[in-house]
C-alpha cells in the first residue's frame, strides 16, 4: 500500500517537468538513496496531512535547479538564491498538489503544507515508525529524487 503511494508522486514529478519545461522525464529503474546527505542537491520538503500523514521530499541537483528557473524565466541563473528556492518550492507544491489529486481519485484524501527549503545536503529529521520509499526521476536536465516518508502508527 505504502509503495503504491509513491507512484502518484513520481508520475506527477514527470508530468510537471514535461509540462512546465518541455523536457523528457521518466521514472528510473533505481531508487533514490533515501537517507544520505548530498550537498550538491537542494531539498524541498512538503508535509502531508489527512488520510496519509508524512512528507514528500524532492531533491534537485543544483545544475538542474538552475536550468529549471532559466527555462521558466528566460534568464540566466548562476547561483541558488531566494528567487530560485522560491521557484523550486512552488514546483514541489505543484507536483504534490497533482499527486494528491491522483490520490483523491482512489478515495485517499490529503492536504499539503507549505514547502520548506532545506539547506544544501540537509535532510528533515527522521521520525520513528516511518516507512520510506523513493524513486529517481531521469530527465534530460538531470535526475530528481522523490522520497516519500509515511507515518505508519
Amino acid at each position, binding site marked *: 500500500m505504502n509503495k503504491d503511494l509513491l507512484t502518484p508522486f513520481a508520475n506527477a514529478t514527470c508530468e*510537471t517537468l514535461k509540462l*512546465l519545461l518541455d523536457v523528457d522525464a521518466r521514472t528510473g529503474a533505481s531508487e533514490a538513496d533515501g537517507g544520505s546527505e548530498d550537498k550538491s542537491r537542494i531539498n524541498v520538503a512538503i508535509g502531508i496531512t489527512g488520510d496519509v500523514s508524512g512528507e514528500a521530499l524532492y531533491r534537485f541537483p543544483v545544475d538542474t535547479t538552475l536550468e529549471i528557473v532559466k527555462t521558466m524565466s528566460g534568464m540566466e541563473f548562476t547561483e541558488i538564491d531566494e*528567487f*530560485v528556492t*522560491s*521557484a*523550486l518550492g*512552488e514546483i514541489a507544491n*505543484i507536483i504534490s498538489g497533482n499527486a494528491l489529486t491522483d490520490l483523491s481519485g482512489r478515495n485517499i484524501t490529503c492536504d499539503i503544507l507549505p514547502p520548506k527549503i532545506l539547506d544544501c545536503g540537509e535532510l528533515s529529521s527522521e521520525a520513528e515508525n516511518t516507512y520510506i520509499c523513493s524513486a529517481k526521476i531521469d530527465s534530460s536536465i538531470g535526475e530528481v529524487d522523490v522520497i516519500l516518508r509515511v507515518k505508519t502508527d
Partner: protein
Amino acid sequence: MIWKDKYNIGVPEIDAQHKELFARVGSFLNTLRSDKAWEEKVNKVNETVAFMKDYVIIHFRDEEDYQEQVGYPERDRHKKLHDGMVAYVAEVSEQYEKYGFQEIHMQQFAGKLVTWLVNHVVAEDQKIADYARSKEGRS
C-alpha cells in the same frame, strides 16, 4: 519570460491578457534581476507590483466570465486557484510595505509568481481550452 504558442487557449481576449502578463512579469524580472543597486530599481519594482495587483484581478474576472459562458464544469475549483493567488499577492504586498520594501520579499515573490504563472497557463488554463474544444466538437 518567453511566450510559447502552446500557451494559447484559443480565446483572443484571454490570450492577449496572458501575453500581457508574461510581458509585464518579464519586464519585472529584468528590473529585479539586474545588477543595479536595489535603491535604483525599487521604484520600478513597486510600479510593477501595483500594476500586477490590479491586472490579475481584471484578468481573473475576465477568465472566470469566459468559463461561465462556456459552462466549464471545473470553474469553482479554478476560481479557488485565482483567489489563492490574489490573496498571496495581497499578503506579499502588505508584508513588503510593512518591512520597508526589502528586496528579499520581491525575489521570493518573483520566483513563486513565475512558476505559478507558467503552470497555471500551461496546465490549468489549457483544461478550459480542452473543454471548450470538446464542447464545440459535440455541438
